[in-house]
C-alpha cells in the first residue's frame, strides 16, 4: 500500500510538475477558446444578417429556429472539441509509460512490491485526474454558451460528463499505446491514429458490401455516437458502461504489455 501511495505521489509530481502538462493545458484551453469565439462571431453575424434583412428584427419571429446559441455555437463547439481532443490528449498520455521504458525505470518499478496491475492502475488514475482538470479548464466556454443560452444546469452536467468520459476514453487509448513503446512520439501518433479510427465509422457505410448489421456493430463501438448523446442532454446507461468498458479494456491491454515485454523483449 505504501509503495502504491508512493507511486501515485510520484506520478502526480511528475505530471503536475512538468511544464509539458501546462503547455498541453494551455493548448486545450486556447484551441477551445478560439473555436468557441469563432463560432460566436459567426453566430452574431448570422443573427444580425437575419435581423437586419427583416423589418421586424428580433421581435418579428423571422429568425429561423436553428439560428440559436445551442445549435449554432454550443453543438458545433462540442463537436469540434471532440475531434480536437483526439489530437491533444495523446500529448498528455504519450510519456506516461514510454518515458519509463526509455529511461529503463519501468524495470525498477517491477522489482518493487507493486504488481504490474497496480502500476497500471496508478498511472491510469493520475492521468484521468489530469484529464478531468483539463476538461474543467476547457469547459469554461461551452459553459458560458449554456448559461447565456439558458439551457440549464442539468444539461451542463450532462455535457461535462460526456466530455470528460470522451477525454478519459482517449486517454485510456493513449495510455495503452504508450505502454508498448519507448518512443513518446510513436505513442502519441499511435494514440491519435487509434482514437481517430474509433471516432466514427460512418465512412464505411459508403461500401455496398458492408451490411446493416456490420454498420450497427461499428456504430456501437464508435466514440462519436456515444459522445454526441451527452451533448444533447441524454445520459444513457449503455453509453456510460461503454466508456467504463473501454477504459477497463485499455487498462488490461496496458497490463499485458508487461507480459509481452517478458516474451518479446
Amino acid at each position, binding site marked *: 500500500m505504501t509503495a502504491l501511495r508512493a507511486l501515485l505521489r510520484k506520478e502526480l509530481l511528475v505530471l503536475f510538475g512538468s511544464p509539458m502538462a501546462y*503547455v498541453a493545458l494551455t493548448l486545450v484551453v486556447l484551441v477551445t477558446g478560439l473555436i468557441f469565439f469563432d463560432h460566436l462571431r459567426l453566430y452574431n453575424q448570422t443573427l444580425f444578417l437575419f435581423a437586419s434583412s427583416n423589418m421586424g428584427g428580433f421581435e418579428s419571429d423571422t429568425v429561423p429556429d436553428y439560428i440559436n446559441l445551442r445549435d449554432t455555437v454550443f453543438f458545433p463547439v462540442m463537436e469540434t472539441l471532440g475531434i480536437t481532443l483526439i489530437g491533444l490528449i495523446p500529448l498528455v498520455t504519450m510519456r506516461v509509460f514510454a518515458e519509463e521504458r526509455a529511461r529503463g525505470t519501468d524495470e525498477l518499478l517491477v522489482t518493487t512490491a507493486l504488481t504490474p496491475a497496480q502500476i497500471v492502475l496508478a498511472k491510469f488514475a493520475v492521468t484521468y485526474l489530469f484529464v478531468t482538470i483539463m476538461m474543467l*479548464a476547457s469547459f469554461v466556454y461551452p459553459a458560458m454558451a449554456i448559461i447565456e443560452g439558458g439551457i440549464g444546469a442539468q444539461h451542463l452536467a450532462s455535457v461535462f460528463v460526456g466530455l470528460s468520459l470522451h477525454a478519459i476514453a482517449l486517454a485510456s487509448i493513449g495510455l495503452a499505446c504508450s505502454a508498448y513503446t519507448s518512443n513518446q512520439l510513436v505513442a502519441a501518433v499511435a494514440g491519435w491514429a487509434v482514437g481517430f479510427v474509433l471516432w466514427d465509422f460512418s465512412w464505411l457505410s459508403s461500401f455496398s458490401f458492408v451490411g446493416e448489421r456490420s454498420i450497427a456493430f461499428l456504430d456501437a463501438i464508435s466514440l462519436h455516437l456515444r459522445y454526441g448523446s451527452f451533448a*444533447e442532454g441524454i445520459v444513457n446507461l449503455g453509453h456510460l458502461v461503454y466508456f467504463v468498458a473501454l477504459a477497463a479494456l485499455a487498462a488490461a491491454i496496458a497490463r499485458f504489455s508487461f507480459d509481452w515485454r517478458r516474451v518479446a523483449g
Partner: protein
Amino acid sequence: MPGLALCGLIALAFAGGAYYATGSFATFSMVNAVLGLLALGAAAIGTVRRARGGASPAFRAVLARGLLGIALVLGAGVTLERLATASELQWDWSFEKRFELSEGTRTRLQELCGRASATLYADEYDPRARSTRLLLRTMAASDCLPFRERNLADSAADEDRFGIGSSNTVVIEVGGQFETVSRPTEGTLYEALSRLARPDAGVLYVTRGAGEGSLTRNDGSGFSGLREALLTEGFRLRDLVTAATDEIPADADAVLLLAPERPLPAPAIAALRAHLERGGRLVVFLEPGGESGLDPLLSEWGITSPDALVIDPASGPVEGAAPGTSPLAFHYGTHPISAGLDAGRMTFFPGVRSFALRKPQPNDRMETIVHSSGRAWLSTDLEATRRNRPPERPEDAMEDYHSLVVAARYPRGDQEARIVAFGDAQLASNQYLRALYNLDLVMNAMHWATEHTAPGTRPKVVAVSGRLQLPLPLQNTLTMFQGVGLLLPELLLIAGALFWARSRV
C-alpha cells in the same frame, strides 16, 4: 512489426480523415484504407509468428494468461454494455426534456408496432439533424419504429415521392401510406403517427350559427388548433347548424357546443334535450357572461352555473387581464378526463365561471373534474378580465374550491347520457390550447364523452427559448475573449514556465 502496425493505423486514420474533409470516399481514402488494413493484418501475423517462434512454453503460458485476461475484460465489457443498452435506461437531462416520450407517443408507437418505419432526410452538415436523429433513436428504442437516415442530396426520387422540401425532414411509412414531417419534434411526429394509426374516435357534431367559436379561424382567439387536434385523434367532425336543427342526427357520438354567444333556437334546445334523453353525449364550453340559452337545459340535468367570474389568487399573468381572473388549476378529481394530470401538471383558464351539481336521479354520477384553489371566490364583475385592475371583493365573498370543469353520467335504462361542461372556452382557443396541459384536459373530455380511450398525455410544445436567439453584443464578446479566452491560457503558461524554471534550479 510495431512500425508496420503504426503505419497501418496512420493510413486508416487518413482514410477516415479524407472522408470527413471531402464528404466522399474517393481514391485517396480507398487506397489508404486498403493499405492500412493490409499493414495491420501483416503486423498481426508477424507478431503472432514472433511470439510462437521466440518464446519458451513457460513464456507462452504467461502470454496466454495475459491474452485471456484481455479477452475476459472484453467479454465482460461487451456483455455489460449490451445489458445496459437493452435495459433502455437513460436520463433526459436536456433543458426541455425533449427526449422523454409522452404517454401519447408511446401509445401510438405501440399501435403501429411492426408496421411503421421512419426515414430522416438531411444534408450532411445540417445541425438540426442531430436532435432529430436522437429523438428518432429514442423512439426506435421501443423496437416499434425502426429508423434509417438518407443523405438528402442522394435522394432526388424520394424528394419527389414524399414531397420533401428541406433538410431535416422525417418520412414515416406504414404499408403504402406515409406522412412527411418537415419540422420534426415529438409533437409533430406524434401527430403524424396518429394520422397513420387512423384511430376512430367517433362522429362529433359541432354546432354553428349562434356565435360559437370558429374551428376554422387561425388567429389566437380561433379554434383551428382544436379542430386539428380532434382530427388527429380520430374524430370525424360534422357541422350542426342550430337554426335548421330540430333533431340531432342518429350517428352523432357527441355534440360539441363551443361558447355560443347568442341563445340557441328553441328547436335546437329541444333537439339537444331529446338527444340526451336517448343516451346522447354533450360537451359544452361556456364563457362567463355568455347568453347561450343552455342554462335551463343544463339545470334539468343537475348542472347550474351562476353567472359569475372565478377570482383565484392562484392565477396566471395574462397581459391586459386583471390579476386573479385567470386561474391556474392543479386540483383534479379522479376521473378518466383528468388521467395523467396532477398537481405538477396544471391547466389554465383565462376567465372562467363555476358550476354547482345536484343529481337529478339517485343513480346519476356527477363529478367535479377541475377545482380552483381553496382561496377562490366569485365576482359578478364580468368585465374584470378585460381590465388591468382586480375586481372589488365583496365583504361576504366566500372562499371555496370552485368547480371549473364538471362531468356527469345519467344511466337511463340501457342507455347512458353524458355531459361534460367547461366554465371557460378560451382554454381551448389557439392561444391557450397548448398552454400547460389544456390540450390533454380538453381531448380527454372528448374521448370520455364518446367513450373512447384517450392515448395518454400528449407531447408538449418545445419552443426555442427567446434568450437563445439574443445576440451577444460585440463588446461583451471581446470582454469575454480577453477576460477568459486569453487570461486563462496565459496563467496556465505562466504556471508551466515557473515549474520549468524551478526544475532547472
